[in-house]
């Protein structure tokens, strides 16, 4: 139900919106279109950009970079699937457990959120020390309890490195999802829960049939956020294995590919901001449609209420 806005009020509304709109245009809209434009040029960072048309995209999708691009893309998808499963899945169960009225449960709420407060670069650095194959505490612990064969070179094994990094990400981020899901669970009216118990529901049935369906909207929002963050991930991989995304590009994601193409790696390889811009356009084309879809979906649901 739209309320009628008086003409005078309209003027004030505009006045309040304009400063933010200007900042938004300057720092978000303009760079967005500027990047899109740049992806059609070749530019080593100094001098004038040269127009190359679709060459950057051709190099990325069918040319010398196609293998790296799709390798990175599938790693992002893997990242998203695993983080959703762990951060939302396990997060949900932890949230359910925290939603009880056990004494001093709030201590656990704080504990689970502490890793989230550590800057992500520090988390990466810390864990790369923990995972050091010779002196890291993970391997030392494994050797001490007799599991010597499991003491692997975690960040050096192309089959394990990405999964290990994702697990570190889960360790760091799960607190956020637990707290958000906890808030959603605590929003469920108590009478519904009581009614379910009175109807003879077991705890498991309560979770499956009452709590989970009622927190589904929150799940959807978090899933979208997780999707966007998974495709933008960069810092943890940079901190743990570096921008070359070793070993053998097995931890490469679109974020590290972008950094390498735009700013170059350690070697005297070609630096081309236009190529990097093309990578970002690719990321944008993946993330944007889903976000739009979500907003449309939400608007539809709001108007249905």
């Amino acid at each position: 139900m739209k309320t009628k806005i008086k003409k005078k009020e309209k003027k004030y509304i505009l006045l309040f919106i304009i400063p933010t709109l200007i900042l938004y245009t300057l720092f978000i809209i303009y760079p967005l279109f500027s990047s899109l434009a740049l992806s059609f040029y070749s530019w080593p960072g100094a001098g004038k950009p040269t127009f190359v048309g679709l060459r950057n995209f051709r190099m990325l999708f069918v040319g010398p970079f196609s293998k790296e691009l799709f390798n990175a893309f599938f790693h992002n998808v893997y990242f998203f699937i695993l983080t959703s499963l762990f951060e939302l899945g396990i997060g949900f169960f932890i949230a359910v457990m925290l939603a009880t009225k056990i004494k001093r449960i709030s201590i656990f709420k704080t504990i689970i959120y502490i890793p989230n407060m550590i800057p992500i670069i520090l988390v990466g650095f810390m864990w790369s020390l923990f995972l050091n194959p010779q002196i890291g505490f993970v391997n030392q612990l494994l050797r001490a309890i007799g599991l010597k064969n499991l003491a692997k070179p975690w960040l050096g094994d192309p089959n394990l490195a990405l999964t290990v990094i994702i697990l570190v990400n889960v360790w760091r981020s799960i607190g956020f999802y637990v707290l958000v899901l906890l808030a959603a669970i605590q929003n469920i009216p108590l009478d519904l829960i009581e009614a379910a118990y009175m109807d003879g529901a077991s705890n498991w049935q309560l979770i499956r049939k009452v709590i989970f369906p009622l927190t589904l909207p929150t799940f959807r929002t978090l899933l979208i956020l997780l999707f966007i963050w998974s495709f933008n991930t960069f810092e943890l991989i940079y901190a743990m294995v570096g921008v070359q995304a070793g070993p053998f590009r097995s931890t490469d994601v679109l974020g590290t590919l972008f950094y390498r193409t735009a700013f170059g790696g350690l070697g005297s390889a070609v630096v081309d901001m236009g190529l990097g811009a093309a990578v970002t356009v690719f990321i944008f084309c993946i993330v944007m449609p889903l976000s739009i879809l979500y907003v449309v979906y939400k608007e539809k649901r709001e108007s249905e209420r």
Partner: protein
Amino acid sequence: MKLQMIVGIVLAVVVVGVAAEVTIWSWRSWDIPVWPKVEAALKAAGYDITIKYEVFAPTEYDAKMALALRTGTGPDLVYARRLPDVRTSSMIDAGLYLPIDGLVDLSHFPETVLKYITYTDGRIYGVPFAVQVIGIFYNKRIYEQFGLKEPETWDELVANAEILKAHGIVPFFIPGKEGWTLAMQHAMCGVSVLGPEWICKLINGEVNFLDPRFTDLNRRLNELKVYYQDGFLANSVTDMNAAFAFEQAAMVFYGIWEYKQTWKKLNPELEVGYFMVPPLTRDQKPYAYVYMDGAITLTSNAKNVEAALKVLQFCATPEFGTIFASETWNIPAVLGASLPEDPLLQEILDVYHNHASPCVYWVGSVFVSQRPSLYDDVLSPGMQAMYAGKISPEDLSKMAQDAISQWYPPLMKKD
């Protein structure tokens, strides 16, 4: 208000006129102690110049410096990367780096070093500051303990490693997590095992990467990995420096730059020896991979060009080389400098003068001037893959040939 303005302007003029300030940007934190000494030397010669030296992380330096120079907020002098390199050539094309031949006396530099900072227009765009020498560094005490000698052939190197391994010593510590060190390892072995003549033929297109000798080197390196530390694919250069300095490993494939400021700092008792990677047979000569690290370049942003040129002219003298070497224990590019009385440094200097390979395929070579580059895109990830058992030595050769034949004309013909 007006009075304050006048006083301000007068002060500014006085300050600018009395002491000229020259700012230098770089990625080398090792050089920080060098510049106060340079400033002192200039002042002693009667030039009132203050030098402000700023360091940035090597991975951010290029982007930061390029941005600052383009917007006119950059320093007077910068450390420039060697040529060929698109970062350097694009700065020259944009007029942000200025040529200095004719303005600075470069007679103390050998031609082989100057070519790394001479552009296609024939002009020289900086004063080279250091030369890097890479090879195998070893722990002398461990070698003596097991009666080992510096190997003269590849098989002797493997035999040394075998003896060490049998006695529970880590023969080689390899930072496998950092792909660039593996590319460096391949390159330093290549100049001896493949030899400069073969590499020159590669550059001319007379042989290509599918040549059995290249694959043979890949195979030899792959077979060497049994002598690396357990879990070597997950170790970084920091781990290697610590392990080598604290005598947990006998040999490393590395460069002279960590010698004083890292290894000796961690363990002053450490005795380090050096030898070039041995060739396959005794009748071949060993060679070392030597490359110019970078040059100090005059920028278009220089506010006080005269003072900046004075600094550059000083950097082209043997006196600068002596200061540079005494602080960093790196080899200065300028000839005639006197180096610290360290036997290892003297040995490295001799290697630079007499055993540098004339043809190379890693940094400073044609193969890294475009993408996919032999360094970043082939050897760095490829060596990791081979060591991890994901690709074979033949696959690595194929990878190199596929990549370079995409853009390097002499290797583009079908074989």
